[in-house]
């Protein structure tokens, strides 16, 4: 009896391993491309009952987090399909997670992600599907968009993603803190030197002038600090060396951030605080200024009781950069992954989902005050805008120059010597020029 039991158990053990293998094969087996070809007559209207995995950055304090949830619910109701959503706030951790998912073969079917060098890896490995390939089967895919604004991949110049809303970066202001400290809200005419004086006054009044976590999100200050040593035409260019004009501008910008740290204009725990902690300083009337993106408007609206106390203005400029020269553009879009597209059951649902999320109506709702790639342009409903929303609309209409964020030309590894080691730069243990040289060394590998 025991012998029989032993044999039975060992047999089951062996079978379970074989079973695991068989199961894996079944789930990872990719349908042949013939499947896609056979679906020649396919329209993007799915039959329903399909579940697709979707990851976006519409989460947390993103302005469109709720709009996204509403749009997903509407698409689900319309098509009978389901979305397994794993959206998260966009930061370096999120980017690492996406890279991990792709490497582990557990990428989503649809991904809303950066269309710059951050997605080069997926493009080079053939893990995302080009817009042209999708149009072979679904000719109307992204036909409401201007192709030259879709955001071609820097890896091969081909369009893979379909953008929704663009972005701008600006300086949000807590008016109550400014008033309590006895300073005026900075305007387009405020110079950098005047801004430094304003910060000093706010600090003397017992408030934190600038809410920023250099440990977690130094990105916005990096962008504007180096922009202040360039102009809208030259900003989106990588240095060829740390010694050239652009390299020196980068080092000078980093040294300006070091100056802000040394002058005590940043939170005392800026080198250890999370972005959520410093944002809380701003919304709880403990800090005056916050540089962030257009997506933060909704986050501020939902975090504060009196939105009238908040506005957005230009980051004070210096040199050739006017205060009204801003950072902005269309840096993200919906990708359909090869995994999702080659799954015959999911293909139509993935295409339908992206078409729905990038339709004129949905994009107009998401766009708010930002630019879009729509041929017909966005038509946002301004009647429901808050005071901050209206200020943002006015702000977005006052740009004299706009440049994409230059950091989007660097991958995560190349950004690390600056964004992952800002503490060493501001504390002086790493020279700004050396950090720039290290960035370029990794970028050129």
């Amino acid at each position, binding site marked *: 009896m*025991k*012998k029989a039991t*032993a*044999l039975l*158990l*060992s*047999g089951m*053990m*062996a079978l379970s*391993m074989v079973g695991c293998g068989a199961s894996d094969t079944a789930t990872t087996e990719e349908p042949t491309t013939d499947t896609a070809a056979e679906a020649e007559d396919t329209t993007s209207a799915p039959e329903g009952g399909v579940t697709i995995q979707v990851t976006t950055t519409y989460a947390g304090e993103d302005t469109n987090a709720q709009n996204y949830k509403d749009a997903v619910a509407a698409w689900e109701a319309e098509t009978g399909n389901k979305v397994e959503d794993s959206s998260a706030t966009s930061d370096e*951790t999120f980017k*690492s997670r996406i*890279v*991990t998912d*792709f*490497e*582990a073969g557990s990428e989503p079917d649809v991904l809303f992600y950066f269309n710059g060098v951050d997605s080069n*890896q997926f493009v080079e*490995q053939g893990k995302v599907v080009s817009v042209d390939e999708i149009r072979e089967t679904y000719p109307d895919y992204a036909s409401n968009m201007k192709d030259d604004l879709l955001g071609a991949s820097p890896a091969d110049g081909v369009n893979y993603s379909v953008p929704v809303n663009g972005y701008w970066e600006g300086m949000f202001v807590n008016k109550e803190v400014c008033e309590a400290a006895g300073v005026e809200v900075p305007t387009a005419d405020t110079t950098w030197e005047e801004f430094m004086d304003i910060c000093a006054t706010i600090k003397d009044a017992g408030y934190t002038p600038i809410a920023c976590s250099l*440990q*977690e999100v130094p990105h916005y200050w990096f962008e504007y600090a180096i922009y202040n040593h360039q102009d809208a035409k030259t900003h989106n260019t990588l240095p060829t060396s740390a010694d050239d004009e652009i390299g020196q501008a980068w080092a000078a910008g980093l040294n300006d951030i070091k100056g802000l740290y040394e002058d005590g204009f940043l939170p*005392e*725990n800026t*080198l*250890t*605080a999370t972005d959520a*902690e410093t944002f*809380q*300083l701003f919304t709880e009337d403990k800090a005056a200024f916050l540089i962030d993106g257009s997506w933060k408007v909704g986050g501020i609206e939902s975090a504060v009781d009196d939105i009238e106390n908040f506005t957005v203005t230009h980051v004070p400029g210096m040199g050739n950069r006017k205060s009204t020269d801003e950072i902005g553009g269309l840096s993200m879009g919906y990708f359909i992954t090869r995994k999702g597209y080659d799954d015959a059951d999911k293909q139509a649902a993935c295409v339908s989902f992206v078409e729905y999320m990038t339709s004129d109506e949905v994009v107009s709702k998401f766009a708010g005050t930002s630019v879009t790639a729509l041929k017909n342009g966005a038509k946002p409903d301004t009647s429901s805008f808050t005071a901050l929303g209206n200020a943002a609309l006015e702000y977005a209409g006052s740009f004299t120059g706009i440049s994409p964020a230059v950091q989007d030309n660097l991958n*995560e*590894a190349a950004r*690390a010597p600056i964004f*992952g080691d800002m*503490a060493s730069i501001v504390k002086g243990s790493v020279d700004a020029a050396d950090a720039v040289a290290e960035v370029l060394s*990794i970028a050129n590998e």
Partner: protein
Amino acid sequence: MTARIYKNKKAVPFFLIPAFLFMFVYLYYPFVQNIINSFMHIKYIGTSGGELNTPVLKNYITMIQDPKMLIALKNTGIMIIATIIGQVGLALLFALLVSNIKKGSGFFRTVFFFPIVISATALGLLFNLIFLYDKGMINQILQFVGYLDISTNELIDWKAEHAMFTMMTPVIWQYVGFYFVILLTGLAGIPQELYEAAFIDGGTKWQTVKYITLPLLKNSIATCVVLAVTGALKVFDLPWTMFVNGMSDTWLTGTYMYSKVYSDADYASAIAVVIVVLGVVLSVVVNRIFRQDADYDAS
């Protein structure tokens, strides 16, 4: 019947082969491949290394000159000492105390073991709140007792000013219970007759601990120390949750390796090799130390 089934060895491979295959596929093969990867140039993790690095030992040469790796090694050394003293030492103290009480020992066993069952990520978030700068538990208590000036909202940035302490405290706290259980099991194996004989001979509590308990518990302590040392070398989850990207120069070998995985996979492989080598060497050293003690005691 029982004797016959033990004599018949035909069923043994049925049990061993699946387990061996599992170990080979998920442990030995990746281990050997990792050593090979540490000499290769790998563009993206998950892709095969196309060519050897130039020079082949590039990653190991870089490592020697890498200040962050040196910080990681130094911090890991501190962590090893802290875990031996803090985890094994405290666990030994708790085990000795609990083994000497008759009522409530079950309660203390549960209490000391409980942190083990909580995920490290959850513990990290918990301690993040405890050590939080503004409105954190410790800073609020220190303000309440008057150590920090509440009128000026004086606060301590634990993650900057006392980074290593802040990182090591939860790590030590989490695993004390693990070693406590091992040592308590070891204590249960010591014959009561020895204690009774010592009591009759007039031995004090301290003398029985020194001359009976500790010598007979040596193997369990050696096991705990080896586990603590190797555990400290690869500790990752809790420090990473609290100190992302080696914040405040808190790199450990485990966290530094992980930080390089997605940006420089072959360098991360080389760090992993170093971690394994250090683990093996330190385990041998610990075993030698305890064996030397045994020879000394025997003489």
